[in-house]
Each structure stands twice: as structure tokens, then as C-alpha cells.
């Protein structure tokens, strides 16, 4: 099995490594989003697993739960994750950390707390809420710092083990190495012509959140050594901006039109490894600082930061066109889109705005035609 096959296997069977870990007596911490410091979890000797949804899975189970008071779990991927928790797909989790991210994620915390009380038959792991503020002001940094300290303490309590600076440094070395390797991968996409497809890249990036980092680094290194022999790709270079993409469907459609996704701005793609942790500083402070100042998602203030990020990354990837893929109900993403389109137009970059997209693309052919037309026009 090649390194890529192995990575792909973990992307497809997302709970494989975590279940194996569990079988060997370890404990697993699930988390949402890309702003929970996995370094803390690793140092605590726990397995960090980022939760994702399943567009092909049904969401029937949450029908009973997604009514009044829970009107916020509307984005398909959030509804799907809630469903999977309730349905027992994540029943091997020992703990679940829920960050104060987008509204629907943040509200999963109260939803799950309430469900734990009202329906004891549900197997819901022990929950921890990681608050943080949606600005990067000085005072917000101070507040967030306290919250991260709180999370560290929580993990210490869960494991009855102290999280020392020395071990944090080791974990930072591993996660920084991961970021560095993933940047090499990004460079292979951004080069002209690109050497790696978006579909492959998304799997490699995604699997880093479903495996232990050291294991992933090893496979990724192996993959990167052999990648020089890959055939160069032709066709249009596209940048994808928009809602979280925790599955391949969208990229598969784009790349079946002969184009290549050379970079993206979403929390399952390049955004997760953009900002490394400063190894020269105190590791605890450096980790906190990194999560405070990492590449922003759309819920963050101010808008200019988001626009700058989108524009810079689209330009750096030498994209010939940008596709905006915005899920239905992902309003926070939709609010920034008109400004991003305007800025890109001013730079002469054509855009395709796909709004109100379903989580599961039910009519791939129609979407393909739209994208083909766009690509031909470039």
C-alpha cells in the first residue's frame, strides 16, 4: 500500500485510527472546528479526533431534536454531525470539546447538555466548552488566554497528568512539522502546472485530523518524496472559497471538468496549517497566541481580515478563477462573499458564485454543466 493509499484509507474511514487507539486502551477526545488546540490533547496522552459530517448519511434522527430552540443547527454539515452523535456513530468518544465557533457549533453545546438530561439513553460523551471571542482585540486575547488555560486544566483533570512545558514543546514540534509538510503539499498545488489535484490534497489534509500527527507526518513525508514523478496537470487553475468542505464531492465535480483546485479557503483545507506556532517562545503562550491569531473563519471580526485572506491566497495560488461555494444557511459566509467577489473582479479574476448549496449535491450533472461553462469562459 502506497503512502497515499494509506492516507486515503484514513480519510475514508475517519474513525479507524481512533477506534484502534481506543481498542488498545487509550481515550479519545472529539472536537469541532479548527480552533481547538490539539497540542494540549496530544500532550495529555489522548487521541484528538476532529468530527466531521456525512452528506450521504441521513439526518432523520435529529428530526426529533431540531425544532424550536435548536433552529441554529441548520447547516447540513452541523445537522449531520449532531445526527451522528445521536445515532451512536461517535459512541467511542470519551470526551467532546465544543468551541465557541459559528453559532450552530456553539449551540451544539447547550443542545447536547439538554439532551443528556432529557434522554439518558443517548450515549453522549463528557462535554467541555471552549469559549473564545470573535475579535482579535488585545482584551479578547486576554480573555481567550484564560479559556485556553481552563481547557488545559480540564485535560489535566481528565487524565490526572500534568501538562508540562517540556512536553508541550515536543507536541508543538510535531504539529509544526505537520504544518510545514502540508505547506509543501500546498506548494505542489500552487506550482505551475500543478502536480497534485485538489481531491488528493483534501484527503491528505483531512486525514491529518483523523490520525495521530506523528503517523500522518511519516506517511506525508513518504508521499512527498515520491511526488516528483507525478504527471503535471493541465486545465484551468481554480481557487475555492466558501463553506467548510468535509467531503470530496464538490472537488470531484470540479476536477471532472478538467480543472484543478490549486488552493482553497475553508477549514478543511489550507486554512488549518497556515500559521505555525512560534517555537522560540514559551510553548504554552506560543500555542495560545497561534490560536488567537490563526487564519480567520468568517465568523471573525473584522470583515477586512477575511477579504484580505481570501484575496491573498487566491492571488498566491495563481488561480485563474474563483468558485464560491456557499451552503444553504451558511449566512455568515454569504455576508462576506459580495465584497470578496468585488475585490477579485478588480484584480481581473473571474468568479462563479454558487449560493444556497445543499450539503449533499443532489444534482451533480447540473452543477458540472455550470462549472464547465465557467471554466470555458476563463
Amino acid at each position, binding site marked *: 500500500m502506497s503512502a497515499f493509499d494509506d492516507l486515503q484509507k484514513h480519510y475514508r474511514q475517519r474513525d479507524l485510527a481512533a477506534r484502534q487507539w481506543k481498542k488498545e486502551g487509550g481515550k479519545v477526545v472529539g472536537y469541532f472546528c479548527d480552533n481547538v488546540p490539539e497540542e494540549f490533547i496530544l500532550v495529555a496522552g489522548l487521541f484528538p479526533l476532529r468530527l466531521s459530517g456525512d452528506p450521504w448519511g441521513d439526518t432523520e434522527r435529529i*428530526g*426529533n*431534536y431540531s*425544532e*424550536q*430552540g435548536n433552529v441554529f443547527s441548520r447547516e447540513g454539515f452541523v445537522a449531520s454531525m449532531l445526527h451522528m452523535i445521536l445515532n451512536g456513530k461517535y459512541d467511542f468518544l470519551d470526551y467532546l470539546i465544543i468551541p465557541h465557533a*459559528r*453559532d450552530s457549533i456553539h449551540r451544539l*453545546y*447547550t443542545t447536547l*447538555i*439538554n439532551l443528556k*438530561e*432529557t434522554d439518558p439513553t443517548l450515549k453522549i460523551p463528557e462535554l467541555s*466548552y471552549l*469559549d473564545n*471571542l*470573535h*475579535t482579535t*482585540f488585545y*482584551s*479578547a486575547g486576554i*480573555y481567550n488566554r*484564560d479559556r485556553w488555560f481552563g481547557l488545559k486544566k480540564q485535560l489535566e483533570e481528565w487524565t490526572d497528568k500534568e501538562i508540562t512545558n517540556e512536553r508541550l514543546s515536543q507536541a508543538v514540534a510535531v504539529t509544526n512539522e505537520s504544518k510545514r509538510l502540508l505547506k509543501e503539499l500546498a506548494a505542489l498545488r500552487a506550482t505551475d502546472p500543478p502536480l497534485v489535484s485538489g481531491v488528493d490534497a483534501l484527503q491528505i489534509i483531512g486525514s491529518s485530523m483523523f490520525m495521530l500527527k506523528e503517523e500522518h507526518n511519516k506517511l506525508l513525508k513518504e508521499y512527498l518524496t515520491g511526488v516528483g514523478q507525478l504527471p503535471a496537470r493541465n486545465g484551468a487553475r481554480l481557487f475555492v472559497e466558501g463553506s467548510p468542505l468535509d467531503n470530496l464531492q464538490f472537488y470531484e465535480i470540479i476536477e471532472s471538468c478538467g480543472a484543478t483546485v490549486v488552493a482553497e479557503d475553508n477549514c478543511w483545507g489550507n486554512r488549518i496549517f497556515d500559521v505555525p506556532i512560534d517555537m522560540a517562545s514559551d510553548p504554552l503562550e506560543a500555542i495560545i497566541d497561534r490560536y488567537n491569531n490563526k487564519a480567520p473563519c*468568517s*465568523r471573525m*471580526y*473584522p*470583515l477586512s481580515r477575511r477579504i484580505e485572506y481570501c484575496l491573498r491566497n487566491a492571488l498566491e495560488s495563481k488561480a485563474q478563477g474563483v468558485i464560491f461555494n456557499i451552503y444553504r444557511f451558511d*449566512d*455568515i459566509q*454569504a*455576508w*462576506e*462573499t*459580495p465584497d470578496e*467577489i468585488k475585490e477579485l473582479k478588480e484584480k481581473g479574476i473571474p468568479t462563479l*458564485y454558487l*449560493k444556497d448549496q445543499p450539503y449533499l449535491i443532489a444534482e451533480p450533472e447540473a452543477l458540472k454543466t455550470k462549472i464547465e461553462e465557467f471554466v470555458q469562459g476563463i
Partner: protein
Amino acid sequence: MVSEQSSGKQLRITNEVRAYQREWIEKTRQRVSEGEPFAICNGDDCEEILNVMDIPVIVINYWHAIITTKRMADYYLDILRERDYPATVFSMGLAVTMDNKPDVAPWGGLPKPSIIIGGARQDTEMRIMELWAREYGCIFWPMEFALYHGVEKAPPPGWFERMRDHWDEFVDPQKLDYRVQEQEKLIRYLEVSTGKKFSLEKLTEAMQLVNEQMDYWRMARDLIAKTSPSPVTLRDQLSMYQTTWHRGTPQGRDFLKAYYEEVKERVENSVAACPEEKIRLMWVNALGTPPLWGRWAEEKYGAVCVTHNYMGIAVDCYARTIQNNDPLRTLAARYMLLFWTTPDWIAAQAKHSNCKAAVMVGGRRSIMAFEKAGIPLATIPSERDDEATRAALSDFIETRLLA
């Protein structure tokens, strides 16, 4: 008995409130044209602070209600769609500004604000308010600790009975510290930028006025609760809610006093809002609007919605006892937690108003929770007055209430 519907008579006070609002906006426009500051903020965010500083403020919820009442919602939602923005009720005010047509806008549009304050209650709020400020060319002031941010635990049973005096039990004290600091920063900014002064003494007065205002509300609510048929339509009761945007002012208090007196007068004169009332119901929705199917249910079954969850918000949640002589912290706690919509609270309100059931859009889980809290719940598929809604209501009334 005199039927309000047949005589077409509304409460006098609701017209007075409306007239006052109109006058208030004209006066504000005048003041702004003379160089005075003007602010826009979200509901339950900073109103008392601005009022105490004598900075006129419009609460966007109220502005949106005006737009909707003037039947301009579709027009402004289209403005948003044309610009590729999500067409949501919360952004209609922004659309009015984008459209920039004073001859078309309700009230001729708002005067230009000096500041727009936006909180983190929802992801999109900060962004929409940020864009709105950009559109006006005024300062945007983000508040990071907004309603419900201070709360991470499930609400304890009976919380609503302790909220007024023991609010400190429900809000995380550390987060509350931050919210207080945030308010102080805002106050400093306003003092520097407008030359106006803030005073704790005035804030104490204002909060006492809020409490008085809500006490009148409670008294009126209690009269309505024990009078059958109800003396006041739900529409009129709800239209008093706009006075919550004048919280902490003598005017706000006086409106509620007049409301209470008018309700009392009606009770004494046996005036019935819906004389055919046979079944009393409680209507629960998020927008604070009367049910669209109200007339139908009344005519068909004599089923009348005599109260609404918003009445509970007014009487159980706004009034707060100042603790430790610190009105700013007391207020901060209310800005961080106004209420939880829990079944036990809704059930308590429904029972208090002698309702046989509550009605809301919902499903099986809500029904279970409400039954557990001791009140039957009729769930309807949507807020629309359509066949599906009527069928669900008919079924519930006939099988649960009349059988």
C-alpha cells in the same frame, strides 16, 4: 358585554405609543441635524446606557418592526437579494440605508448615526452591523459579550422566579466582569466622542424606572389572566412591547401605567376583546407577533390566544434588583442573560393565564417536554395560516380539548 371586535375599538394607549414614536423620530432627526449624536444598537444591548447619557438610540428590532408594519419588508429584502446578500429580517435596516431613498423609506429613513453598536449574539449580527456602519460612514463598535454569552449551563427549574432578585446565580461572574469592562469602555468612548456624561446615579434611577414599568405590566397581565373573556386582544398586548425600547425613561413607565389603568377600566366595565371566548390558549413564537390563524380559531372554536411568551419576558425578565449598589453590573448581567425559553416557564405562564394549552411551531420533542411541565402543547407545522396549520389545530382542539 361590548365586543371590541364589533366596535373596532383598540386600546387608546396603543395609538398613543405609536404617535409618540413618530414624534420621537422627528425630534431626534431635528436634534441630529443640530449636531447631536445618534446611535443604533441591537435590542437588549446598550439602550439604558445610551438613554442615561441622553444619546437617542434606535433599537434595530424596533426599526425592523416599523419596516414590516409599513409592508416594506419585501421591498428591502429584494434590495439585499439584488446585492447578493442573504435576505434576512435582521438586515432590513441595512437595506434601507443601502437603498438610500428617504422618500420611499418608512419615516423618511433614519438620521445618520454617530455610532452603530453590534454584539456577538449571532455570528451575522456583528458582520451586518459592521457593514451597516460602513454604509453610513460612521463608527462600528463591536461588543463581544452579548446576550446568552454568559450562560453555559442548562437553566435550573423555576429560574424565572429567581431572576429578578437572584440574577447573579445564573451568569458566569468572570464573563460578567468582562461585560462590565466592555460597558465601561463604551461609556468612555461615548463620553470622549460626544462630550455627554454618564452617571451611576442616573443609571440607578433608570433601572428603578424599568422595574416600575415592568410592575405595571405585571399588574395588567394579572388582570387579563383572571378575566374571561379577556379584556384585551393579544395584538394590543403585544403592541405594548415596543415600549420596552424606551426602558428606563419616565415616558416608558408612564405608558405602562396608562396601559394598566386602561385594562383595569375595561375589566371594570366588562369590555371583552373576543366575547365568544370559550377556550383560552397561549401562543408561543419568536417574533412576538399574533397568530395569523387567530381569527379562524376564534370563529370556529371560540379558541382565543390570551397570552404570549413575550408577556412573560416583560414581567419576569426585565426587572432586576440592583445588587451591591452596582447598577452597571446588574445591568450587564441582564444584557448577558434575559431569559431561557424553557417548558416549565411557558407552562407556568399558561397556567397563570388559565390557558388550556400552549400552541407553537414544533414537534414531538417539544410536546414531550411541555407535557412533562404540565401543559398540553399543540404543535403546528409552520406559522402560516394554511390548511396544514388549521388541520393540526382542529385535530388538537377536537381530540384534546373538546373530547
